[in-house]
């Protein structure tokens, strides 16, 4: 079921909330059971078979977790074996459904093998759920989770606001909240939830979706081998970057808002990533819960193991003035590239996603290397940050936009076509109707090699306006976390000590004016439900 659908908004959600509050007034355990059952229905709505696939996996993980808990104190070695078995099981589960066809196809392409590719039913949100289950097992082994029941575990995995597309949550940050939840109607939580959900719905339907109709034909042309002019290629790249930005931002706001209706605060997942001044900064703002997972469960264990190994061999480790090239390559570049490769593969089974992950890995390595080298010739960090932040922003923005082409293009060759268009390999053209209205400017453009073409002027103007307005919103406006900071819209979010003028002006309060404003935003979103569209991140 989509958050942005009539059945969800006018059927499922009101019924689930009414039932939750009514049951919670009598017995909070019943309310939580109701929430778990509703989450299962939410998951089954699209394809009931999904439940048959995911339920056994949940039971097996629960069984493994119980076994680890029992053997934990007496036989730590056995616990580790069960953990490894659990991780392998979960990765095989994910791999079978998501990557088997891709691997078979890749082997067929490379070696001419004859693997038969079958149409598998991909359980919704399988990548998110798998990571969450692995994190749970690792946390048990590390002693970060002590007591749990099947009902707790079921609710943790199935909680519908974050079930399909995150944020990727930890048991230890969710369960204390469920245990403390009153399961009764709370006006503050409901007001905050309404605001977050309304803004998220509008972001998704009013800001993100129209861009899809704009960029889809351009990527279709690239896939068909039709060259793109400079303007078309940049519209394709910028348009998709903003589409996925507002799509994911909108989804995250809706997830935060929905959880808040039940008195639950989800972790922060999206924090104005296009404002980042470096790629490292970007990954601390974009899909924060994924970065957190990859860092905690893949990158850190890898660097820790490598550090121990190098120390045992007497080689210098990474960090400080003693860092040499080999330490950088082995202890930072390699784990970073591997982690981002996994990030790419996690997003999708395809060469484009693999390359997207690797490209970001390379960018992160360059960023880290710069951070090591820069103090040697520019030691004044404060001054450096002040002077270079705009350049850092521009480089980061262009890198992210450039890489996003891989995220959207159906094939690597289509991405290369868009990239070549972006650097002007196929020439630069403007629609004749636009060209004819530029007067003397047109002569200057002609001198620069920009020529008129029989393409749609209306589309170009619409694309330029949309992209321009959305860029201004993304780069200048405070985000929802900042606007609602005094009410902790996500776990751990605190108000800034000295907020800027615009952030102060747009700071949310449960006032009448905000109620009318948010109602307008909500209505605009609801009225845009007519054309249903899926969230881009639901495919992962």
């Amino acid at each position, binding site marked *: 079921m989509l958050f942005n659908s009539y059945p969800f908004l006018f059927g499922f959600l009101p019924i689930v909330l009414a039932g939750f509050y009514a049951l919670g007034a009598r017995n909070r355990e019943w309310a939580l059971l109701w929430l778990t059952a509703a989450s299962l229905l939410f998951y089954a709505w699209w394809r009931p078979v999904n439940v048959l696939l995911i339920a056994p996996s949940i039971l097996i993980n629960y069984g493994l977790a119980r076994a680890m808990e029992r053997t934990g104190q007496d036989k730590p070695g056995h616990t580790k074996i069960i953990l490894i078995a659990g991780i392998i099981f979960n990765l095989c589960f994910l791999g079978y459904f998501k990557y088997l066809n891709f691997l078979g196809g890749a082997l067929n392409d490379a070696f001419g093998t004859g693997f038969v590719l079958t149409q598998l039913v991909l359980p919704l949100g399988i990548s998110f759920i798998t990571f969450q289950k692995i994190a749970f097992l690792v946390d048990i082994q590390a002693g970060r989770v002590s007591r749990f029941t099947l009902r707790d575990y079921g609710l943790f995995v199935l909680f519908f606001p974050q079930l399909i597309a995150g944020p990727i949550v930890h048991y230890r940050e969710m369960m204390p909240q469920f245990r403390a939840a009153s399961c009764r109607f709370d006006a503050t939580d409901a007001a905050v939830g309404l605001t977050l959900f309304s803004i998220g719905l509008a972001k998704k339907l009013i800001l993100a979706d129209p861009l899809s109709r704009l960029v889809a034909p351009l990527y279709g042309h690239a896939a068909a081998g039709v060259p793109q002019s400079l303007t078309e290629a940049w519209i394709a790249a910028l348009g998709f970057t903003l589409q996925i930005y507002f799509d994911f931002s909108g989804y995250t706001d809706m997830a935060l808002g929905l959880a808040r209706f039940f008195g639950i605060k989800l972790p922060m997942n999206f924090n104005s990533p296009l404002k980042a001044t470096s790629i490292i900064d970007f990954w601390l703002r974009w899909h924060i819960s994924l970065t957190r997972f990859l860092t905690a469960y893949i990158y850190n264990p890898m660097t820790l193991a490598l550090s121990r190994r190098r120390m045992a061999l007497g080689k210098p480790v990474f960090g400080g003035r003693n860092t040499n090239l080999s330490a950088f390559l082995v202890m930072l570049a390699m784990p970073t590239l591997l982690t981002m490769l996994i990030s790419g593969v996690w997003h999708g089974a395809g060469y484009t996603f693999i390359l997207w992950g690797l490209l970001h890995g390379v960018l992160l390595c360059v960023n880290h290397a710069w951070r090591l080298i820069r103090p040697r010739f520019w030691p004044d960090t404060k001054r450096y940050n002040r002077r270079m932040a705009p350049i850092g922003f521009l480089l980061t923005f262009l890198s992210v936009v450039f890489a996003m082409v891989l995220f959207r293009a159906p094939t690597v060759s289509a991405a290369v076509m868009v990239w070549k268009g972006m650097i002007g390999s196929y020439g630069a053209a403007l629609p004749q109707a636009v060209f*004819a209205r530029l007067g003397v400017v047109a002569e200057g453009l002609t001198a620069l090699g920009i020529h008129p073409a029989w393409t749609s002027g209306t589309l170009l103007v619409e694309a330029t306006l949309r992209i321009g307005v959305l860029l201004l919103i993304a780069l200048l406006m405070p985000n929802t976390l900042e606007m609602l900071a005094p009410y902790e819209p996500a776990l751990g979010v605190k108000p800034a000590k000295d907020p800027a003028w615009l952030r102060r002006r747009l700071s949310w309060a449960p006032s009448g004016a905000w109620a009318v404003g948010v*109602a307008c935003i909500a209505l605009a979103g609801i009225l845009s439900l007519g054309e249903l569209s899926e969230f881009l991140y639901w495919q992962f």
Partner: protein
Amino acid sequence: MTGPARFIRIWLASLAVLAAAVAGINLLVDPYDVFGTPRIPGISLLKPAAKNHAMLAKTYQIARAHPVTVLIGSSSTHIGIDADDPAWPPDMRPVYNYGIPGGYATSASLRTLQEAIALGGVKYAFVFLDFQNFFVPERPAASPTEDERRFHLLPGGAANPDRAGQAAADRFLSLATMGAFVDSVATVLGQRNPALLNLAPDGSSNEADFSNAARTDGLYDLFAQKDAFELERAEALAHAMAGWSGPLHNLDIVARMIDLARAHGVKLTLVITPHHADALDLYWRIGLWPRVEQLKTELAGVAASRDPGVTVWDFMDYSPFSTEPVPRPGDRQTAAGWFWEPTHFRKQLGHIMIEEIVAAQATRFGAILTPDTVAARNRMVRAQRQAAVCGGGVVLLTALAKPIDDGCAAAAAVRVGGGT
């Protein structure tokens, strides 16, 4: 009452009031003419937004129009044939224009004809055919489209079980969507614009789209832009037809139209729509003209074999109308003559077509095709082209899109070699 509780109460009240206001405005303005709300001068007399929802608007309009004559076709019919043209005789009125912009498929024409007949009262049907539609086979969609769910009947003639649900959805979405609200506001704000696009209750358009573009960009730009589009289309069609030796595609759909009309006592006329020589010569130069002639021959044959009462009109030739010169680049003053651009003719030309069709006599251009006359007609059009294009009298923009040999030199060489 605490702040957050008051917030929720105001939020709910505002949402309800605003939603009711939006639905009320959409019902009053009725931007897609779904509800048939009386048109109010200054508010909703003209309906510019209906163009982009033509199938939606027209399917509800025709149910209210109770036409005796129905015009079926694509955008050229929608724009170029006036349902209120004075040439329509009284016994054929009221006429409804069921031409669908963007509806290129011949199968879509069959479905709209079926819908018009299912509503009852139709005695005459004119189906305007675009020759390009016969070069690629049309495959039925795996599941019915939104437009098809709206029709009263399924393709096989049984009652459509999805219709009630789709009708409810159409009405709900016309009341409660952002797009409808934006279109309502634009409709009201645009009423003072003398050049506002309109979809009349009889399904006709006032051509404002093209007249506005011609005024701001000039006809030369319209022709050149469409030539570039049509070249791509012609090349794709030539590729699709390469090596094909059988009869042309989709004539079975035309045969079903003939059977449908005959079964319901509807007098059917098939019309091959006129194109400007700019477009015609693209197809000629790309080597598809023999296919065009094949279409005329096979269409005449299908009509004669299915129902001799069906008339086939061919307005696709190199007449003085279709070879009218295109104004020069930058010329925004010269008014359009007979064509807005290569594939869309003006209502003035549509008027002449209606006069000829009603009189059953080709006096100024076009011809009635029968199996006996089609060969002569094809020869005549070739001669027209020879005189117009190779004779040097007519300047076409065709070569702008892509320089392709016009074949005139080769034809002249053959004539010289043959001693003619």
